[in-house]
């Protein structure tokens, strides 16, 4: 790892100021993606601005149907939150499947979304829940937020402060984890609200997280796992790598969708 100047921010304003003063700064939250990337020199910022001690980023609130989760909330805290479990248990289930306990104690929802790893779990949930990503300057619909592999709509000096979504009537998540890394080889989040079905797929797309028109159409006609029996997801835009071919992933996506629907209807 190259050497780096470390700054700890106590507030959002301070974080933005410290970032502005840095030559080639980067925000750090849980560090569970950034530190490994710095160790391999894939990332080499001159300065790190630590967001982990900003109290404003750590709140979870559920009021009526509206769920708001601070960007600094860890995966372990989402997994264990009784308030979130009452509104959207599928999201707690998803958070509990990320990595391992040690990673979940440090890693945050804001860091995961800003990183937008094509095999990360949270992006699928945000897209299926039609969530809003709230930043230091604006609000961005999940639909417009994820723009490609490791790419988002965020400006360099923009901090995610929270995410907000309406509790769905039903939701479920299932992933087939890569046996070594635990990242998704295919992960499917389904959400039903006000008669609309949204299905988002992570781990499988050539261009990151996406909504599946085929799965949504089949589930809108009948919301059951058996309704997916005859559905095929086209392999054209899916990923082929050393772990699996696009065709294999197409099969996994349908299999995971069935499990996610079973969870949503159980």
């Amino acid at each position, binding site marked *: *790892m190259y*050497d780096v100047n*470390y700054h*700890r921010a106590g507030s959002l304003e301070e974080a933005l100021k410290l970032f502005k003063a840095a030559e080639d700064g980067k925000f750090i939250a849980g560090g*569970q993606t950034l530190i*490994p990337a710095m160790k391999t020199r894939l990332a080499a910022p001159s300065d790190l601005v630590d967001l982990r001690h900003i109290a404003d980023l750590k709140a979870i609130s559920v009021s009526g149907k509206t769920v708001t989760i601070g960007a600094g909330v860890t995966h372990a805290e989402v997994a264990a939150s009784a308030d979130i479990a009452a509104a959207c248990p599928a999201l707690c289930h998803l958070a509990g499947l990320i*990595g*391992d*306990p040690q*990673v979940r104690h440090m890693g945050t929802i804001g860091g995961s979304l800003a990183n937008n790893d094509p095999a990360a779990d949270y992006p699928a949930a945000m897209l299926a829940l039609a969530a809003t990503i709230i930043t230091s300057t604006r609000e961005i619909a999940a639909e417009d937020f994820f723009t490609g592999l490791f790419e988002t709509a965020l400006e360099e000096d923009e901090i995610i402060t929270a995410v907000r979504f309406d509790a769905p009537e039903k939701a479920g998540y299932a992933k087939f984890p890569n046996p070594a890394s635990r990242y998704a080889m295919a992960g499917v989040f389904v959400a039903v609200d006000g008669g609309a079905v949204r299905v988002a797929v992570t781990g499988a797309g050539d261009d990151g997280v996406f909504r599946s028109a085929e799965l949504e159409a089949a589930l809108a006609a009948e919301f059951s796992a058996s309704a997916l029996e005859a559905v095929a997801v086209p392999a054209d835009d899916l990923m082929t790598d050393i772990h699996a071919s696009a065709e294999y992933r197409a099969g996994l996506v349908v299999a995971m969708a069935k499990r996610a629907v079973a969870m949503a209807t159980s």
Partner: protein
Amino acid sequence: MTNVTMTVNGQKVSGSVEGRTLLVQFLRDTLGLTGTHVGCDTSQCGACTIHLDGKSVKACSLLAVQAEGAEITTIEGLAEGDVLHPVQAAFKEHHGLQCGFCTPGMIMAATDMIRRHPEGLDEGTVREELEGNICRCTGYHNIVKAIMAASEAVKTGSTKAA
């Protein structure tokens, strides 16, 4: 170089580190606490597991400066004098180690796991919760046995928890 101060195994310690110094390097090289091991470069093996403010984390994936002001517990902080911590005693009793390289990380993960599951642990949960700890020797069976026995011992109050 910057100065960092934190509490390690109940004692306040300070040292001078570079921004890039990992917490595990600070513990091993500056403080001489070599019980915390480094088994990989990819944040996956868990040999470096310690507790940061009471929670298990990987000391190889955290800068020393990020731990400024924190409470750290390492494997060296578990036993009380000559009396092993119940999880350490259970690993010994149930042959939960062979070469011992992964053991400090396993034990730090296990004490955290037992803390989070006061209701007790079944085998499936223990195996899932060990996702972040890799052992090359034991095949895990005796590690799982040891953790379940330690959890039972802590639960029935025959010994104290971490």
